[in-house]
């Protein structure tokens, strides 16, 4: 059933107002939109990162639902343990409620240091949803590059200098890696409209077994955008096909958003401070062309996987 904005604006979010995330940060938006479509009680497991640090400054907590954080690289194992306890205690008649389990990790905690733990949890088949709030780098420690950082981005451990133009490598395709675990539900989306995250997470949570949702969210400081542009920049990510929006349901790939026209990648890169150096001189032309070629190739692959064509 489709989610109506009206319904979830009237629901109490599991994450309260008054947390300490930055204005315009996409992570709390992903949490609000993601969790508000879930009907059952939910337990949240969080990897170390901005979301964890900024929502639980002791003796306060911004979480209205049970929440646990242990370390950085282990949200997959953490949610496995909670779910395993739930299954055990339910079998033994000590719990009678239906409870859902959602893990949140940034791209550092998911693409990089937490990949093994996530892979193990997906393979074992626990009933949980893992949400990667992907802002393309290590924001909690000050905008370092991760394996999710886009090619050409200026990050503090891949700075744009006189010789190097920022990060040289293409990000890894974590959503495809998750799909390669043959779990029942995998999706990738961004905050490009008000209901897509809620719908995808709801479906992920309601699907028995492991699910993975990769949500591209802006870090306003790293991306170098005005906080008011959160949704606009996400829409550009989807429209330029930098971040294709799709689902993989029981192995079947399906594009869930097809931009109506061809928008060049510059439209997504130009408004962002982290790519500013790419537009300063001629030397970056080749890199921009490479980024566009990456986007076109990835899009073509997803079209083929989805059995689709695109006429724009």
């Amino acid at each position, binding site marked *: 059933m489709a989610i109506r904005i009206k319904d979830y604006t009237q629901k109490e979010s599991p994450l309260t107002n008054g947390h300490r995330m930055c204005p315009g940060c996409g992570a709390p938006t992903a949490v609000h939109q993601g969790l508000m479509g879930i009907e059952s*009680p*939910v*337990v949240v*497991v*969080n990897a170390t990162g901005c979301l*964890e*640090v900024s929502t*639980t*400054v*002791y*003796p306060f*907590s911004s*979480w*209205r*639902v*049970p*929440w*646990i*954080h*242990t*370390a950085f*690289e*282990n949200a*997959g*194992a*953490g*949610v*496995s*343990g*909670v779910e*395993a*306890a*739930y*299954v*055990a*205690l339910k*079998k*033994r008649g*000590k*719990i009678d*409620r239906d*409870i859902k389990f959602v893990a949140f990790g940034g791209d550092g905690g998911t693409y990089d240091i937490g990949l*093994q*733990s996530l*892979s*193990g949890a997906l*393979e*074992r088949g626990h009933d949980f949803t893992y949400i990667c709030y992907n802002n393309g780098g290590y924001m909690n420690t000050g905008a370092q590059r991760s394996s999710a950082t886009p090619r050409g981005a200026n990050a503090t451990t891949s700075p744009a200098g006189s010789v190097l133009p920022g990060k040289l490598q293409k990000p890894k395709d974590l959503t495809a890696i998750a799909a390669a675990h043959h779990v029942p539900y995998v999706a990738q989306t961004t905050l490009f409209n008000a209901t897509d995250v809620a719908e995808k997470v709801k479906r992920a949570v309601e699907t028995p077994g492991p699910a993975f949702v990769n949500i591209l969210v802006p870090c306003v400081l790293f991306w170098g955008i005005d906080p008011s542009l959160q949704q606009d920049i996400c829409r550009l990510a989807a429209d330029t096909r930098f971040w294709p929006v799709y689902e993989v349901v029981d192995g079947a790939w399906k594009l869930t958003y097809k931009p109506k026209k061809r928008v060049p990648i510059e439209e997504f890169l130009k408004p962002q401070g982290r790519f500013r150096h790419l537009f300063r001189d001629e030397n970056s032309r080749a890199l921009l062309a490479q980024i566009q070629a990456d986007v076109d190739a990835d899009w073509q692959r997803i079209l083929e996987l989805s059995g689709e064509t695109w006429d724009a």
Partner: protein
Amino acid sequence: MSRREITSGNWAFAEAMRQINPDVVAAYPITPSTDIPMKFAEFAANGRVDTNFVTVESEHSAITACVTAAAAGARVMTASSANGVALMHEIFPIAGCFRTPIVFGLVNRSIGAPINIHCDHSDSMAERDAGWIHLYCEDAQEAYDTAILAVRLAEHKDVLTPVFVCQDGFITSHGFEPVNLLDDETVKAFVGERDADFPLLDVDRPVTYGSFVMSEYYFEIKRQQVEAMKNVLRVYDGIAKEYEAVSGRFYPKLDRYRTEDADIVVVIMSSASGVVKDVVDELRDQGIKAGCLRVRMFRPFPAEEAASALGNAKAVAVLDRALSIGGTAPLAAEIKSALYDAGKTIPVQSCVYGLGGRDFFPQYARELFTDLAAGKISREERYLGLLE
């Protein structure tokens, strides 16, 4: 009815796990503790337990899943050794601070390099400040009994602290010996059910575990763990006596073997203490007042009791199966500190033995006692059985 079986330390520990039938076991194989999860997997596969057995992809994930499952309200057990224990290092203090009462079969093995699969205590000693209770077992019988007893200790409301139940890799874990096993009902009644106070799964009373705590509160929270450890010293004997009532076996914090009137005492832990005790008997037959103090509880360290057990000894040797390279070996440091606080100036010879599974022969103990009796005591650490 209790049974007597020929079994190994690992299998005895696994048998205790079967009888405890915990809610969750998350474990990963590593020599020499692998037999524990293997045996337990067999129990699960044959319906002899209904535990949720989680076959994680690393030790780091094993202990993480144990911590979150225990925070969720489950009774949780696991096992590991050596590098596996080292990989878990990051999560041990979290388990301690979350006050998750995990019972952990730690089968002692040396930490590489050089890589080696045999026994020493370098793995558990590296975790001595992790906020876990450390109990060191002499044999398979004790490993079995301690696994059961540890559930009650870990879950005691004044304690709520995870427990390492240590046994010596290969020597105890793979050695077969007769072990008296309790009947299932006795174990079940002794351990009872876990009654968690703030389970994460109580969705009607949501709790936040693992908050970000800055300088204003961090110190106070750690202080509470110190208090819980002190409580272990207070409540342990009561639980051990209850266990004695059902099993006929009592395990004190410190095993005092002919120490009451001893002039010379060797302090040691785990399996090699049997060798020392044999030599003590030999020497006693010769009229030499020798004794052995086996330290079973290393964390919390029963310092006052240790100092009092060493009573009026004229000389003491402390045998560590671990180095503290550049410092004093762990057990020796504790004993010296305990004696200092008790105002005793007994000469202490610190010795290191058995690293990487090097055998410990009675002759080493004989020579050591002879030297203690002759007052041959050095401030230099002494290495027993080392070729140099």
